[in-house]
């Protein structure tokens, strides 16, 4: 191995690496670091096509499975096309499933010492977490795009105005943000990729006991209450309203105020899990 002296003054960054001292420069570091960390995750999309493909395959499979296999046996409360009813449910499903990706990524990094490595360099500590959040949001946007395309192919249409459609997307992303914090909290809690895998298991029933696939009106009484209380249901109903899709005619207070609840639930989840995630992250130093 040749040993060239990399500490020569001409190229010695020791003196160049400074710490930001003003609030503005701190903010600039945080923004840059967030972007660099997010990019690291996004490169995986470009560089590992298999992973990306399977990630995109899942929504497509769901459209096929529920739209056509089960869909023929489904009826929509108050009438309407089942696949039009289904798509907003699938949008929310992809968002909810995102928690598994967040937990896995966070646990991988924590378990492999990547998080510690980041914490041992002078980068912004906000950036470590915010970068993860940004990457997950972008992943979800891409997932939603694929699903929207699938939906258009099978005959789903957004009937509302452009503004309403954008509002629907915004509500879905709002739900995703709240779920990022659940994911970061759980990821820091379990710390190993093996344990993170366990998080996937309860996800499916949680997603099923909602109004995504079947209207709660058609469920037994106690299950209907659970399904309507599921935060995912509020977002699904709200997006159905905004996209002007069928199946929005619930009679309970929760479904009549779905738009409100689609904001309240994510806000509540964030209010609980954001401090928990920050606490967990800080606890790494204790």
């Amino acid at each position, binding site marked *: 191995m040749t040993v060239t002296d*990399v500490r020569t003054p001409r190229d010695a960054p020791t003196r160049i690496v400074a710490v930001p001292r003003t609030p503005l420069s701190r903010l600039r570091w945080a923004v840059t670091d967030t972007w660099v960390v997010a990019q*690291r995750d996004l490169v995986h999309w470009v560089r590992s096509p298999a992973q990306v493909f399977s990630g995109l395959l899942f929504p497509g499979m769901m459209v096929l499975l529920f739209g056509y296999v089960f869909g023929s046996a489904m009826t929509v409360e108050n009438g309407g096309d089942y696949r039009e009813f289904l798509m907003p449910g699938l949008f929310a499903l992809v968002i909810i499933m995102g928690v598994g990706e967040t937990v896995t990524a966070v646990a991988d990094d924590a378990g492999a010492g990547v998080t510690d490595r980041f914490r041992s360099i002078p980068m912004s500590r906000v950036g470590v977490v915010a970068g993860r959040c940004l990457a997950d949001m972008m992943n979800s946007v891409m997932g939603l795009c694929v699903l929207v395309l699938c939906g258009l192919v099978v005959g789903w249409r957004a009937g509302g105005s452009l503004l309403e459609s954008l509002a629907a997307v915004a509500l879905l992303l709002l739900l995703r943000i709240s779920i990022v914090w659940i994911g970061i909290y759980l990821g820091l809690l379990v710390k190993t990729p093996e344990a993170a895998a366990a998080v996937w298991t309860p996800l499916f029933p949680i997603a099923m006991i909602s109004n995504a696939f079947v209207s709660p009106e058609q469920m037994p009484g106690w299950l209907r209450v659970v399904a309507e209380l599921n935060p995912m249901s509020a977002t699904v109903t709200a997006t159905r309203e905004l996209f002007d899709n069928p199946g929005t005619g619930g009679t309970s207070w929760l479904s009549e105020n779905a738009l409100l609840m689609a904001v309240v639930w994510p806000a509540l989840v964030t209010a609980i899990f954001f401090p928990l995630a920050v606490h967990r992250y800080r606890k790494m130093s204790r």
Partner: protein
Amino acid sequence: MSAPEFTIVAEGLRKNFKKTEALKGVDLKVRAGTVCGLLGPNGAGKTTTVRLLCTLLRPDGGRAEVAGHDIAREARQVRTRIGLIGQNTTTDHVLTGRQNLMLFGRLYHLGKRQALRRADALLEQFGLGEAADRQVKHYSGGMRRRLDIAASFIAAPDVLFLDEPTTGQDPRHRSEVWRSVRSLVDQGTTVLLTTHFLDEADQLCDDIAVVDQGQVITTGSPEQLKSRIGGDQVDLLLRHAHALPQAAKILARVATGEPETVPEARRVSAPVTDRLTALSVLARELEAAGVAVEDISLRRPTLDEVFLRLTGSRPKSAQEAEGDDEILEEGVPA
């Protein structure tokens, strides 16, 4: 400003995890431009000490300065001066070698051109120039480790922390890592490393701090430690293993420490101070007792024996995979 003599100074460093006292007051001084090894049994507090000095953990008591900055009050300044290499490689498998170094360069907020120049210089230095544009998942274990070290060297840190850098590496990779560490030290970097391997400590370290039960119990160069436990080591090689207890009893009379018996090798060893008296007494008494001896030899103690005497337990060493009873009792570290 003249360069300070010590790059790492820790005084009474304490750390509790819930109710366990992980560190009970660690005192440590590491001279600038040297390699200091933290040696100790599992759970002694080696890794905790490193994590405190790297600002990954906050101390519960005591103070420490790394490269002239207080680890508690000036954590971020400390982070500009240190590099950390943990037990796992943390480089990204999907990125190429160069991309990995660029990532860290950008996190250190070097300009894009400087980050690139820096990445290329380090890839060259660590013998990864050829592999710069290959994805890390195609690298060998030794190459990954070297890339890891290169990444921690982006900002030319004054202090490099290595937490068991060669655990799980094959011997060839271990010597590659040692060479890399040596070349950095030659350029003025101070290195603090933790290790299980006594041969690693012996070869690489200028100074060794033996850590046991949350404290530094002794420090010194490998040679100093060896002579500190007293003179020489006597090995008795017997013809028959059944005579070992008897030989051990006789050896105990002239030894300055408890004799250690190795039944498979028909050998019993113990440290002695006065070698000539020891030899003549041994020869006489062994003959009188009718113990058949094949060989008596005197040698300097190994670091292994130093360690055993100081901590009462034996760390695993590279060659020692062949079933040491004490290791089995202690259990394999996670």
